[in-house]
């Protein structure tokens, strides 16, 4: 097919990128080649704007078996026990078509995990939406949750945690991130096409026109008025096929029938054929006519870049082909030989006996552009940081507490997570609703703790500090269940990288994550970057979501957030700064302000606190532990009490009580313990240098904040448990 002048621009390639392609090929590209370059060199696939920054992140550690660059990071959590851990985004598709966008996001991350030879055993879904007063947002929330529920439940992978945050900036750009944990059952797989003469076998769904340009059109550009037209670019999920794909592929790996293995996601067939060849220094000869299709008349370029779901590419030695086909056939899956590995390092695509593309595999996979985009600290940062942070006192302390309690970001997310199967596989020691999920590994005594956190507000006020706070909170959540934080996967959600202020936010966030991860000893084992989260020129808050993984050596000793026995002592670990109200839930909900500076963080103190939690949990001193985050001490107390239908009596100074109750200083944890164990806890804290203060006792029913405030437990419970559902029912939308 002849290439019209300027068509590369419609495919999202710049003139400079087009020139570089001509230079690499030493001729004009064919249409098929141009289409392949457009997806492989898209922001989504090539990380062209983020690469130079991501290189600064710490990625190595004694537990890291595989770092960034493969389907997922691999972490050794106990001798001989390895897990895969990775996060992805499906933001744009989920706004255009919430149900399928979110569903296929789950499918995509699951295949990333599968590509490493690991069985997916847990999902977490960090979600961000606009205010629920908007009818379209309510539709998006319902569709996204239903999509995750429908897909995740069908494939039989428990959704054990996540976050659901509501903020104005996500109104026309929701964030749908999804993290997945995998368990390496037999051996690790790699995405490498080794051995000339070996066969490339496409396994799974047929290829259609759905999802053409998903990566380049949807994920690598801003939204505008015409975004509805992009609906055909959203892929359609089939969880039934995905379940069969998981079981069939794990059987192929168990029986050692695959030489190399990779998933098909963004970029379609172009991606694994070029990447697997490039990594092995080989090439591949592919006949697109062999690809099984769901509709006639598809052009070769469409077959090469279609993002039809539920497909994997296996490299198979010819003697094993019959066995591979038998396994796939038994599981009801199509599997076809679509090409073979060759020594020449080129990817040659043919159709109808003609070569339609012939490019160096490395040019597609590894020689894409790499941009040092301009960064510029925006002038508004100074203004917003020096503005009043919204710390005016409330007119009514009780009303303020109830309002924060019923804020959809703070309130119970039961409505969301009851729609997810969070129990399958009999590994969910702790499911949704706590600080971190605790998942026991199959046939093992070891469990892992998982948490996802992304304080977008703090990052908006100060991206560097906000990113450090994100890492610290994620690690603290994992430490709260008694786990040792080990490794990080991250999903970096940002606006348009071509804008210097967005690039500044990005570079600051990456610097913050790097510094915090180095100090906490938790390397980054992989992740994802999602740019262009802008609609009509308005960007989201810079939102890095940190997925922290920790190890729980004794799952039976894992701590929950809930008080358990009236009469137990309540101890606050760490010290609050009453002025830490910038970016807080109090400032937003009560005073309608997002300004000032985020709280200050001392990472050395954070490390000491984690050590204290780890040791006191190990020794059985603690009964419960709960991280202080949105809503500060007040909400932590309410949540710890409500978890098991208890109450509390704590001392709060009545002067400026609202600051003590609602400030969001980090590095603080609310714990309860038997009064007999209290001295030991305080001694341990003193030895480690962590401030620890007895603030009250667990009560059977009453909820009393000293002389400052007493609340009605039934009213609090009603507000907290029903706020989300009531907001979703709407009513305030005009």
């Amino acid at each position, binding site marked *: 097919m002849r290439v019209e002048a300027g068509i590369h621009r419609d495919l999202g390639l710049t003139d400079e990128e087009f020139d570089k392609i001509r230079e690499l090929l030493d001729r004009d590209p064919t249409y098929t080649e141009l289409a392949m370059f457009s997806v492989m060199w898209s922001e989504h696939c090539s990380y062209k704007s983020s690469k130079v920054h991501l290189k600064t992140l710490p990625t190595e550690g004694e537990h890291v078996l595989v770092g960034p660059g493969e389907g997922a990071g691999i972490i050794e959590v106990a001798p001989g026990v390895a897990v895969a851990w990775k996060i992805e985004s499906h933001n744009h598709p989920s706004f255009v078509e919430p149900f399928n966008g979110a569903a296929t996001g789950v499918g995509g991350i699951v295949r990333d995990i599968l590509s490493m030879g690991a069985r997916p055993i847990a999902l977490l879904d960090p979600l961000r939406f606009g205010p629920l007063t908007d009818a379209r947002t309510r539709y998006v929330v319902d569709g996204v949750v*239903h999509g995750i*529920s*429908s897909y995740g*439940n*069908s*494939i*039989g992978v428990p959704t054990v945690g996540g976050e659901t945050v509501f903020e104005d900036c996500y109104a026309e750009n929701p964030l749908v991130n999804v993290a997945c944990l995998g368990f390496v059952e037999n051996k690790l797989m790699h995405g490498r096409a080794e051995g000339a003469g070996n066969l490339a076998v496409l396994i799974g769904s047929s290829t259609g026109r759905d999802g053409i340009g998903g990566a380049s059109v949807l994920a690598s550009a801003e939204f505008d008025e015409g975004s509805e037209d992009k609906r055909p670019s959203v892929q359609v999920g*089939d*969880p*039934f*096929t995905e*379940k*069969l794909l998981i079981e069939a592929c794990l*059987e192929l790996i168990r029986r050692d029938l695959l030489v190399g293995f990779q998933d098909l996601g963004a970029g379609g067939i172009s991606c694994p054929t070029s990447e697997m060849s490039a990594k092995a220094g080989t090439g591949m000869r592919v006949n697109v006519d062999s690809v099984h299709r769901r509709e006639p008349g598809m052009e070769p370029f469409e077959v090469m870049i279609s993002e039809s779901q539920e497909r994997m590419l296996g490299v198979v030695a010819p003697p094993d082909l019959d066995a591979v086909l038998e396994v796939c056939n*038994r*599981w*009801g899956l199509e599997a076809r030989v679509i090409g073979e590995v060759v020594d020449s390092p080129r990817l040659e695509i043919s159709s109808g006996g003609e070569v339609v593309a012939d490019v160096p595999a490395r040019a597609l996979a590894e020689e894409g552009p790499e941009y040092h985009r301009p960064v510029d600290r925006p002038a508004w940062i100074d203004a917003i940081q020096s503005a009043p942070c919204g710390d005016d006192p409330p007119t009514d302390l009780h009303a303020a507490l109830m309002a924060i309690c019923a804020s959809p970001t703070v309130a119970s997310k039961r409505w969301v*997570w*009851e*729609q*997810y*199967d*969070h*129990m*399958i*596989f*009999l590994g*969910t*020691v702790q499911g949704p609703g706590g600080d971190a999920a605790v998942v*026991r590994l199959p046939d093992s005594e070891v469990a892992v703790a998982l948490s996802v956190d992304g304080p977008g507000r703090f990052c908006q006020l100060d991206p560097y500090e906000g990113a450090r706070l994100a890492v610290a909170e994620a690690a603290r959540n994992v430490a709260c269940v008694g786990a040792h934080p080990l490794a990080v996967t991250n999903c970096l959600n940002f606006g348009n990288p071509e804008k210097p202020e967005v690039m500044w936010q990005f570079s600051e966030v990456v610097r913050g994550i790097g510094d915090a991860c180095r100090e906490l000893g938790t390397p980054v084992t992989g992740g994802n970057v999602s740019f262009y989260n802008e609609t009509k020129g308005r960007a989201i808050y810079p939102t890095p979501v940190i997925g922290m993984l920790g190890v729980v050596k004794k*799952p*039976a000793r894992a701590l929950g957030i809930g008080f358990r026995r009236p009469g137990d002592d309540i101890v606050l670990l760490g010290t609050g700064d009453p002025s830490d109200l910038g970016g807080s839930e109090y400032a937003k909900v009560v005073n309608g302000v997002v300004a000032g500076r985020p709280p200050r963080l001392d990472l050395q103190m954070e490390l000491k606190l984690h050590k204290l939690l780890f040791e006191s949990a190990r020794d059985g001193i603690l009964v419960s532990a709960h991280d202080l985050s949105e809503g500060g001490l007040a909400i932590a107390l309410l949540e710890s009490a409500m978890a098991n239908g208890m109450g509390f009596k704590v001392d709060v100074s009545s002067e400026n009580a609202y600051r003590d109750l609602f400030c969001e200083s980090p590095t603080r944890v609310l714990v309860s313990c038997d009064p007999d164990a209290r001295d030991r806890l305080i001694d341990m804290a003193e030895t480690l240098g962590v401030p620890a203060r007895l603030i009250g006792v667990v009560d059977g029913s009453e909820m009393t904040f000293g002389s400052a405030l007493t609340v009605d437990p039934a009213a609090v419970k009603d507000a907290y448990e029903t706020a989300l559902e009531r907001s979703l029912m709407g009513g305030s939308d005009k």
Partner: protein
Amino acid sequence: MNAKAAVVVFPGSNCEQDVERALRSLGCQTQRVWHAAETLPDTDLVVLPGGFAHGDYLRTGAIARFSPVMAAVQEHAATGGLVIGICNGFQILCEAGMLPGALRKNAGLKFLCRWTDLRVENNATPFTSRAEVGQVVRVPINHFEGNWYCDDDTLADLRDSGSILLRYVDNPNGALDDVAGITNKDRTVFGLMPHPERACEALLGSEDGRVIFESMIDHALQAGSPDPAGRVPEMLGT
């Protein structure tokens, strides 16, 4: 001697490994049987586990009832062997006509995964013999279509014959007469929406589900295996 259980795997089943783990923890031997098998291996118990057999396409259980293995499952029950269908397995048993009624979408039109309290209504059956009548057990549900329904005559029949074995204490899905699990007149087939295999270990929140499997194992060990001769198992690779 150990009891033996065959766990049927349909394409799309996803609770087979959990059921096996729970049964094994109670000393029961298990093996998986692929849905395409036309015969069952030598077994005391047959389990149709939860999941999304054949993707739940058309209607839950509607395609699975035609899987070749179902004839053998029917015969197993007809010759006195015990069959339990959990969640999707219950839906399949209803579609296959082995139990009355049908499972509709939950009254709230949402998928629900939560702990429920169930009241044991009759313990004079092989599925509940270890429980007390009126005993409340804590077992989780996990379904979109768990809203059991039947016509008035059938319901009267089930009540009169003591075939309603489990009722929800706090009905989560709109099921008629709070029904969570029912058996047939012969007491050989039991279908229930809650997942007893998820409630067999204190670490996971409850051990109450064991009472059902333990009752079935008791029965199998007392009755001995039906062991019809000449059956050739077609096994699923594990």
